[in-house]
């Protein structure tokens, strides 16, 4: 107890050094340059939190009977989760549009986009163990491929969807070929640089990409050639089925589209895992040198993982473009890559269900929280709530960052970690 107190006190002293200047003093952009403002309470609260947090950590670590409990919990949770949670989630996802709420369907579409990106990146990071920090670049390649093909050649979504995937995979191979020979951490920083290069190109190659203004009026997808449109033409969905045209039809259609794309990603991944290629990816993650000694061509195997992951990002990018009908370089920053990575890591590096859950909570949950806060803020006329809602994206990234660190320290193999074998001997 005394030792715990002493350690908590020392931590608080360090926190004092960290937080007093950076939180306790704030640089305000005033009318005549910067002014320094004091904010002692915020700093004091943080220091207090560190003290209490550290103390609680010690007490938690020393609690009696800890061993038995943790072992039991960790063995039961994954199996039950896999058996029940996945079907329930799937059913909920299929039934969601029945609520008829545009808000939930839009939110669902957003979450599913991240689920798909997460599953795509999971192939690269979770299965093959390659840290890709520029995943969003392939998402951008997919989105711009569709937008540009539609703009210049008038191609429709369904033709462009596979093309976008192929383009992204092609870029994956192009980038991957020279760098995949390198050590893992070099790959990380090269992909990071690549993501930035793509973004800078998109901003500055104005004649092709319209620069920061982005591309507008990207065509919407059709349902077997039928348009989703408010006019009652025969070639519209509403006209064909003889129902009243409503925008929600398109929203729901897009929702099912991304659900189908995400499920396709999941199906291909699960399928590949049980094949030699997928097994080789996992083996690569476990031990590259042993793979080489068994005659596995390490570079091409990595390349296939990299390109497969990129391809799904390309699909997702084409979907993003058609859903928004507008894309600009702003949508493809490092923050997006980091978000997807955080989802994969929180999901447990390799666990499909974990990725879905992480996206649901970290994207859907926080988005709902933000909307809740801003509604409360409006109703109560409270600036504090509205301000908090406005800052939430920043806090979200802060939470993501912390989550990455905490996950690595506590459960490096993830929350839902029970790995299922890809072959069994009976």
């Amino acid at each position, binding site marked *: 107890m005394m030792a715990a107190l002493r350690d908590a006190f020392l931590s608080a002293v360090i926190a004092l050094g960290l937080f007093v200047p950076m939180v306790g003093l704030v640089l305000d952009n005033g009318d005549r340059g910067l002014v320094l403002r004091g904010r002692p309470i915020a700093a004091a609260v943080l220091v207090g939190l560190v003290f209490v947090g550290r103390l609680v950590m010690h007490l938690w670590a020393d609690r009696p009977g800890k061993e038995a409990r943790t072992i039991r919990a960790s063995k039961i949770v994954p199996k039950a989760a896999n058996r029940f949670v996945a079907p329930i989630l799937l059913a909920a996802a299929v039934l969601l549009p029945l609520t008829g709420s545009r808000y939930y369907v839009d939110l669902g579409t957003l979450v599913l986009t991240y689920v798909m990106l997460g599953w795509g990146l999971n192939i690269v990071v979770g299965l093959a163990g390659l840290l890709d920090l520029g995943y969003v670049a392939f998402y951008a390649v997919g989105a711009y491929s569709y937008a540009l093909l539609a703009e210049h050649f008038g191609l429709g979504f369904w033709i462009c969807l596979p093309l976008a995937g192929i383009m992204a995979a092609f870029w994956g191979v192009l980038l991957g070929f020279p760098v995949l020979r390198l050590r893992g951490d070099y790959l990380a920083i090269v992909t990071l640089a690549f993501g930035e290069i793509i973004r800078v190109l998109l901003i500055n190659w104005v004649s092709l990409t319209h620069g920061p203004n982005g591309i507008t009026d990207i065509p919407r997808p059709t349902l077997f050639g039928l348009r989703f449109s408010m006019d009652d033409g025969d070639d519209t969905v509403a006209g064909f089925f003889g129902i009243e045209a409503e925008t929600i039809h398109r929203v729901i259609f897009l929702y099912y589209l991304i659900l189908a794309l995400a499920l396709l990603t999941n199906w291909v991944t699960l*399928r590949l895992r049980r094949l030699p290629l997928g097994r080789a990816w996992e083996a690569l993650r476990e031990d590259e040198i042993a793979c080489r000694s*068994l005659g596995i061509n*390490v570079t091409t195997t990595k390349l296939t993982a990299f390109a497969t992951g990129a391809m799904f990002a390309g699909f997702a990018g084409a979907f993003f473009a058609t859903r928004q009908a507008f894309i600009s370089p702003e949508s493809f920053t490092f923050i997006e890559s980091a978000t997807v990575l955080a989802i994969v890591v929180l999901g447990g590096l390799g666990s499909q269900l974990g990725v879905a859950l992480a996206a649901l909570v970290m994207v859907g949950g926080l988005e709902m929280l933000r909307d809740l806060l801003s509604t409360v803020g409006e109703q109560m006329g409270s600036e504090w709530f509205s301000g908090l809602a406005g800052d939430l994206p920043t806090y979200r990234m802060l939470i993501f960052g912390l989550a990455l660190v905490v996950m690595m320290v506590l459960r490096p193999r993830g929350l839902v970690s029970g790995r299922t074998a890809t*072959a069994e*001997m009976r």
Partner: protein
Amino acid sequence: MLSVTNLTMRFGGLTAVDDLTFQARAGEVTAVIGPNGAGKTTVFNCVTGFYRPSSGTIEVAHADGSRFRLERMAGHLIASRGKIARTFQNIRLFAGMTVLENLLVAQHNALMAATGFGVMAVLGLGGYRAAEQAGIEKARYWLERIGLVDRANDPAGSLPYGAQRRLEIARAMCIDPELLCLDEPAAGLNPRESEALNQLLLGIRDGGCSLLLIEHDMGVVMRISDHIVVLDRGRKISDGTPAEVRADPAVIAAYLGEGEDA
């Protein structure tokens, strides 16, 4: 089987292996021994493609008469084309994967061809199912030989040390090698496990696969080797049958000279 000719390996200014020539004959167990720092592991890494030798040639001749030069071959081809398998001094299993999966990964190239390189099998086409079944049967055969059938579905990392050693050998055998290279296979084994290992290795040899091993445990070396090459400070000091080598004064000098720490 394997001919190493004038092999030299330098790291910066240090010459780890100096103009080494020896042969490993087909159907025999060849052991490379020597005091610490003699260059055994370096030779080994050159043969298995992890180092590029500074000079010299390494040639392997298969039972069907085909010959391959290994010293400039890409690392993974030495296993897949040169048919040389190896194990590691510090065991390198895919610890998170099951025992069976470890053995299936070793059959990667054969199974991969059966999948039509991925595309067909994702769609469920082609004869992959049969190929995988054959792969599992081959794995079962080796698991029976090393006595680990009942652990097939457990993570490889959860096996006891001795079992991990045997599994690594079984995994190497799953690539159907003509030459199996073992880096200190008996290290850390108790006498009973060590004896079982001897039987396993002799069985592999009698099955038609030649063996090249580095070993510190003289008991193992003398009992199972047909041919011994002794290195000291990167040079070959003796070469012959166990009895010849044991009687060679140069070997005795090398070992006694460094007797305390060898």
